[in-house]
């Protein structure tokens, strides 16, 4: 008879919580944590994909050599003028962070985070091979640069267009509901379909864009094979594709803003663009931060657009990190190096998550 209460007592709240969490944790550990640490482990080996599959003993522990081979070079020097523009921008950001942190316009942790990033930019951009030196892997850093350019274009592109669209579509009419669905639809498509659509759109012979240019008497641009336009082309396709989620998040944010605010502002003759600037934007700050960070993490992992639309070309101008990892792992069968690059990507994305954490905490204080 006292059996039942006993069981009830033996499972404390914490224990029950763990019991309920266990299935999730098990799956998470099996499919995320274990592969992650295995990836780190592989990155410490000279590991040929095919050879190791046929002979598990064919791998060799090499310590950090893969990292050195990927990121470092012979006779590497540091100077303040290796990449003057980037480094000056970094210095300016560093000064800005110090100033805003000092005057209290930004919270301490936020300013600190910004400062650390700026200092890293100044430091890393200053590295360059000396007269007799060379990078061991001449493609790695340019690839990282391309990835940053892609993120730098795609994230503001998606955020701004989603914000403008959300503000325009935030009305309760049937047409707006239909338009909201329409704009979200592209998000549902897979990357293969999206890139196929845009390859046709960009085609200088049959594409819609070329046809319109010709209609106005211009010569069509070879979007995907012209080094000046290739990156822009994959950014445009990406913005079109990943607008949906940002749009939904902004719409949710907009609906959280009380109507009273707008009514009160209207009494003070603050409507339209001014209301957007003084009421909508400040109230959307948190949503904007969330969208930006989510997009940054998402777009660092860009692969399909570059792989399918431009094959990383022309002349590597759209080669991005994940595609390089893929090529190193599968085309070159060099899993060790590929894993080292993947760990690097993880660190970069992890850094952005940390920044989000710090900035988010700074806000609530």
């Amino acid at each position, binding site marked *: 008879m006292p059996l039942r209460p006993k069981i009830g007592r033996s499972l404390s709240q914490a224990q029950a919580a763990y019991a309920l969490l266990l299935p999730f944790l098990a799956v998470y550990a099996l499919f995320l944590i274990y592969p992650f640490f295995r990836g780190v482990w592989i990155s410490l080996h000279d590991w040929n*994909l095919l050879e*190791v599959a*046929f002979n598990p003993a064919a791998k060799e522990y090499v310590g950090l050599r893969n990292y050195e081979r990927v990121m470092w070079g012979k006779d590497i020097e540091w100077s303040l003028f290796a990449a003057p523009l980037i480094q000056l921008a970094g210095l300016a950001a560093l000064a800005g962070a110090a100033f805003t942190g000092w005057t209290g316009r930004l919270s301490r942790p936020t300013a600190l985070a910004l400062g650390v990033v700026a200092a890293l930019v100044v430091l890393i951009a200053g590295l360059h091979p000396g007269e007799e030196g060379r990078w061991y892997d001449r493609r790695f850093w340019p690839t990282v640069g391309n990835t940053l350019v892609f993120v730098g274009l795609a994230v503001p592109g998606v955020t701004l267009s989603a914000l403008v669209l959300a503000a325009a579509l935030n009305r309760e009419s049937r047409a707006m509901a239909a338009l909201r669905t329409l704009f979200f639809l592209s998000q549902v498509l897979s990357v293969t379909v999206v890139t196929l659509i845009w390859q046709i759109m960009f085609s200088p012979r049959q594409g819609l864009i070329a046809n319109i240019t010709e209609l106005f008497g211009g010569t069509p641009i070879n979007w*995907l094979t012209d080094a000046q336009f290739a990156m822009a082309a994959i950014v445009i396709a990406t913005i079109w594709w990943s607008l949906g989620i940002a749009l939904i998040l902004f719409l949710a944010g907009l609906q959280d803003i009380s109507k009273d605010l707008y009514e009160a502002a209207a009494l003070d003759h603050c409507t339209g663009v001014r209301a957007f600037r003084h009421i909508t934007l400040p109230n959307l700050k948190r949503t904007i931060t969330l969208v930006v960070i989510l997009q940054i993490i998402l777009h660092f992992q860009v692969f399909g657009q570059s792989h399918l639309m431009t*094959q990383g070309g022309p002349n590597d101008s759209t080669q991005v990190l994940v595609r390089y990892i893929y090529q190193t792992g599968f085309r070159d069968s060099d899993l060790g190096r590929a894993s080292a690059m993947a760990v690097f990507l993880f660190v970069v994305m992890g850094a952005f998550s940390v920044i989000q954490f710090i900035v988010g905490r700074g806000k609530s204080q």
Partner: protein
Amino acid sequence: MRQLIICGLAAATLASGATAQEVTLGRFFGACEDAGTDTKASVGEACIIQSIINAASAEIDGVSIETLPTDWGNYYDQIKAAYAGGTPPDVHVMHRHRIPEFAGIGALAELSGDLEAAGIDPADWSEAARAAVTHDGGIYGVPMDIHANLWHVNMDIMAEAGLVEDGKPVLPSSPEELIAHAEQVKEATGKSYLAADFAQFPLGVRMVLALLWQQGDNIFTEDGTATLDTEAARRAVETVTQLFDAGHADPRLNYADSQQSFLNGEAAVLVNGTWVVDFYDAEAAKEETGLDSYYVADFPTLFSEGATWADSHMWAIPAPLKADDPETYQAALKVLAFINDHNIDWARTGHMAVRNSVVDSAEYAELPHRGEYAGTAAIATDTPPSERYGAIQDVLNREFQAIWLTGKPVGDALADAEIEVQDLLDR
């Protein structure tokens, strides 16, 4: 009685279903939905190969073939991943240039002892074809073709420019003549002389390679020294870039666009492989295409010796299948024998056959345009074997694209390419 018959039929289907050995097959060449089983009627690589596979599945007793879905562009990545995961297809197509990489680590089954028993006669293969599947003295596949770069010619444009003699196109024999012909075409017709995919797929690379080989040079030596930053390589590249500089070719066209421009009748010559001969022939016969008079020529010799880029398609069986699953291995050999028997059907694509008995047959000689590029087999060339073939091709494609798409100086690009190829050879 009727019930008895139905039961008997059901039992028969069940029995045959149980004994039919399923063979999984991996291939590129693209998809063909309704290939049927008529190996004589299909057109284009995808449909011809699929009709042969369908016929094999239908005609070989006790063997059914499942063609796995694969993507052309990522084929080798998929195959490698499948090997690494322990689930490679029972038979799969591959290129000759991949043999060092796959056979070098023991991934492919050595077939020499089992071919005759399966009905394949290696003695009937041409010497080049046998060399294509041979690695370290063993035979690691059944060759299906030799394919090479050709000059596909629009005879109407050539005639207008006065570049036809005795019904044959007059092709250049030096870089200077090349530019002179191009100017003739531009003057007479206002059209481009040459089109090819210089922007994505490495057809431009293969063209430069041919021009390099024609000077008796190569991009690296058998012992693994990169030799790209040379006078010969510079001459080869500049032979091509002079066309771009003078507006006789557009380096920004990709595969589909360059092909379309040739089929629209906008370019006199298209540099592309043997794989499109039957397709272009069919297109030229259509009323609506701009190309009406189609001719196929051997890649012309612009320097001292003849050479054109070439490779081979071949079928291989994974080593683990031979070791662990003799029944499926035997079934897979039967499939290879069937494909070997239908070498003439595959040659309809435009590829060169690998069996002497087929090459010497009247049926082969009568294939459309076959006589026009009979010289190609003798000048077929490729780079020395290397496990890094794919990566090396990518380096060349990138650096050459940098020259003609982004204006990188030829010397810089060749020096950079040499360093990177050397890195790959040293890895």
